[in-house]
């Protein structure tokens, strides 16, 4: 998991200014593994104050798989980064993940509780899925 985080940090170190960085984030938003429409319901909605985030998780071959969506593209890009780090990991690793890359690539402000974009709640929810799958110990979908 940390290898992926280092990879992301390397990618972001190439950017000369904020515009390149945000253009990349906006591009990443388009690669987000989108949540199946059937799960895009209030049950899967993580309420931020401004942008809405839908998140779904399943366990396949002992690894957590996340899909998501948001109505804001910068939020989508940031979710894509989280999913790149956390999808395909073992539940217990997801549960105790230290997502230090966010700070290192200078996007910490987007995870601030005052930013109210739903991202912080989403990270908490992703970790909770890790805890839940670790406890259950068999392949399944939650919800």
């Amino acid at each position, binding site marked *: 998991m940390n290898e992926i985080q280092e990879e992301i940090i390397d990618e972001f170190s190439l950017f000369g200014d904020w515009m390149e960085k*945000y253009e990349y984030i906006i591009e990443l938003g388009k690669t987000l593994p989108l949540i199946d429409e059937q799960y895009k319901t209030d049950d899967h909605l993580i309420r931020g104050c*401004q*942008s809405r985030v839908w998140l779904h998780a399943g366990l396949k071959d002992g690894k957590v798989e996340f899909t998501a969506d948001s*109505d804001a*593209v*910068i*939020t989508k890009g940031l979710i894509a980064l989280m999913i790149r780090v956390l999808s395909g990991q073992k539940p217990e690793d997801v549960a105790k993940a230290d997502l230090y890359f966010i700070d290192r690539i200078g996007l910490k402000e*987007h995870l601030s509780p005052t930013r109210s974009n739903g991202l912080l709640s989403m990270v908490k929810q992703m970790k909770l899925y890790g805890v839940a799958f670790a406890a259950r110990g068999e392949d399944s979908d939650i919800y």
Partner: protein
Amino acid sequence: MTPATEPVRPVDLQAVRSQFPILGRKMNGQPLVFLDSAASSQKPVSVLEAMDQYYLTRHANVHRGVYQLSQEATEAFEQARRAVQGFINAASDREIIFTRGATEGINLVASSFGRQFFKPGDEIVLSRLEHHSNIVPWQLIAEQTGAKIRVAPINEAGELLLDEWEKLLNERTKMVTIAHVSNALGSIFPVEELIAKAHERDIPVLLDGAQAVPHLPVDVQALDVDFYVFSAHKMYGPTGIGALYGKEKWLDAMPPYHGGGEMISNVTFEKTTFNELPFKFEAGTPDMAGAVGLEAAILFMEGIGLDTIRQHDKTLLDYATEKLLSVPDLKIFGNARQKTGAVSFLMGNHHPYDVGALLDQQGIAVRTGHHCTQPLMDWYGIPGTVRASFGVYNNLEDIDRLVAGVERAARMLG
């Protein structure tokens, strides 16, 4: 003799801006463009100095001390009350209640007036444009008393539909409450007309003046309004203080809101009698330094001139509207004929959060989201808007930076 057409003195922007050191800050490496004064304005040095001087030289608890210092503190506090009285031209300083802000003022009236006068089936008439602060307190008292909320519709431009509003008034209507100026769209409501029509039916009117006092001269006697609330922090004063104006006949008839010290006349365990106005509604030690800061904010505004402030705001709003409308795919929400203080917009189909985040990267502070007016945003069918709002310190360059910032954000979002 001063002819009514005498040109209004323009604002000396350099002098005004020098009063706000915060405007010299950089955000994300760019000089700050602060366009969120409708949420909270910045504070001039004179306000901070007045509060400092109060604490450094005049502070003691008010109204109870026999010693000179307490009397000086009391005098400072009561002088601030008279400054508020003068600012909105109230008939008496007994009609000025210090509150924590507009929200507390509305809660006070809803709770005290409602407990005294609302009966099951009674109605409270408000508008679709209200800030949550002018909805939720009425919902709470409606739940307790069995009263009902009636919501007057608006048109696409963000103007109240007067005829529809008037149809809601009937013998069960016990309160009309409405924003003087919409925080989300900047619409100015025709409050003189509303008050006159409500009074024809003996219905009292509360105006939420939070977004009006920073931009418009307000005269509560000329308006003949029953209650008027505002916050200091949106008009260059400190946070945590505001004022409620209420006609004495209503305030006298209303029970106290909070209980405590200061608001009593005599306390025994059998029966407590309450202090006279305005102290009946000011339980506990008040925010003296805040009151002094509010007075300094009034002096700051009056020093510039309320007409000058009004005209400068109009210049900014007209310029911003014209420039923003020249941006392809940009849509302004709220095109009321009478507007002040703010322009709300969306850029194509882009989420306001995305636009706001990219403006922030360029040092431009705007508000994005529903602006605490979810029923209004739901009515428009949008998640929110980007809102640029103005203070007397903003200049045309700020608007140019905003427009360039929005154009750049639009290019990046594709």
